[in-house]
């Protein structure tokens, strides 16, 4: 299953990216920006912050493209992880600055203050089991680690792993 359409083959694009061709990075931007920006916005919930994250992420991609290994995953998964990690880092450092409030309190106040609730998110929330939706929200949009999830759910790590698998299985069946 291929979800994005590139104008050149992915192999060719990777070769051009590794040569640091600007036009190749522009193609990457044009193809994937809406998806990356949407995810970033869901994580940081502020347009200026999301723009910062995207800028930082593209610099990281530019600097680390030589480390990208196609055997380990698709180009988009690689970009998505760089962007998600950058966004989550930004969110966490921002919440640290806010008088050492815990991440939870920040999330609660933020989502009330500026609710950028994407229509797609509602769709996901409606179609998934509530427990699976919550799990995907935690790991995908909030960047919780395995042990943070284990702590929240009061479950052993092994169970967390299989739960995450079930959640993604359901996601794969629906979307």
């Amino acid at each position, binding site marked *: 299953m291929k979800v994005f359409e590139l104008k050149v083959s992915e192999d060719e694009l990777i070769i051009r990216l590794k040569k640091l061709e600007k036009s190749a990075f522009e193609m990457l931007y044009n193809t994937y920006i809406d998806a990356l920006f949407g995810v970033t916005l869901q994580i940081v919930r502020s347009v200026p912050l*999301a723009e910062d994250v995207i800028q930082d992420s593209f610099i990281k991609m530019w600097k680390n493209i030589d480390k990208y290994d196609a055997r380990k995953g*698709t180009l988009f998964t690689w970009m998505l*992880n760089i962007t998600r990690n950058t966004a989550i880092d930004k969110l966490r450092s921002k919440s640290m600055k806010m008088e050492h409030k815990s991440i939870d309190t920040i999330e609660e106040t933020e989502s009330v203050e500026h609710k950028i609730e994407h229509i797609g998110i509602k769709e*996901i929330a409606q179609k998934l089991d509530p427990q699976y939706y919550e799990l995907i929200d935690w790991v995908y949009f909030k960047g919780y680690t*395995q042990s943070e999830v284990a702590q929240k759910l009061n479950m052993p790590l092994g169970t*967390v*792993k*299989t739960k995450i698998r079930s959640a993604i299985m359901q996601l794969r069946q629906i979307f």
Partner: protein
Amino acid sequence: MNKNEIIESGLLELYVLDMASKEECVLVEKMVNEDEAVKQELLAIQAGIESLSLITEQKPDANLKNKIFDKYSEKEQQEAHMIELISHKAQTILDQTLPNFWNHPYTIAATYLILASSVFFAYKQYDSRKSAEQALTEYKTKTEYLSLQNTIYKTNYEKINIENQILAKPGNKVIQLSGTPNAPDAIAIVCWNTNTGEVNIKIKNIPELPSQKQYQLWAMVNGKPIDAGLIPLNLTNNLVINMKPFANAQAFAISLEQVGGSAVPDMQQIFLMGNV
């Protein structure tokens, strides 16, 4: 772990979400390389996650693109990238091949001495009373320092070249040996050529030898440990060592034995092991 166990475990999902630990990543990458079904499952999970990001798509302001691509002209990035790459490579070479040499207090002292003396002579150069003799000494010191450095790089380069040649041979199987509770940080890679039987090993973080002791490699052949050779006493991290060849083996292990080795391994003193 077999292929069904790894698929069912949820590890592949964690890997795609970038939540897996280093050890888990190593395991996943190994299984994906070895088994087509695991690879297909990984690709399907990636596609699933990718479709999630299609649902939440959002167009940013048109100016964002200019902000990214104007600010970082191609040339600047390429230069920065090259410098980073070169310094990273140089550091890796130094870290990997000469840790003992560089970490030795005398080496550090000597390096600083050489550096300090070249700074001193550089200062002297601006001194109008500098004599021709001093200038000559300065260049001598600098040249000696540079040629010393050059030799180090050359040796390392050759070492890496040899290693690459060993690793790139067809028929090679890479087996990771993990530390037992005797040496939890230790790690070793056995490179076993199933065509020629050649066995090479690279060991890292193995505890320092007690006196009168030596490490010995064993190959498990049909349930029996067979001597695969002694690890040199003056072992340094990451050096590739050539061991005895084997046509058939199911596992490899390293034990601590008396200097000169034993005929059978001391089972209490197994330090590293791994299955083929």
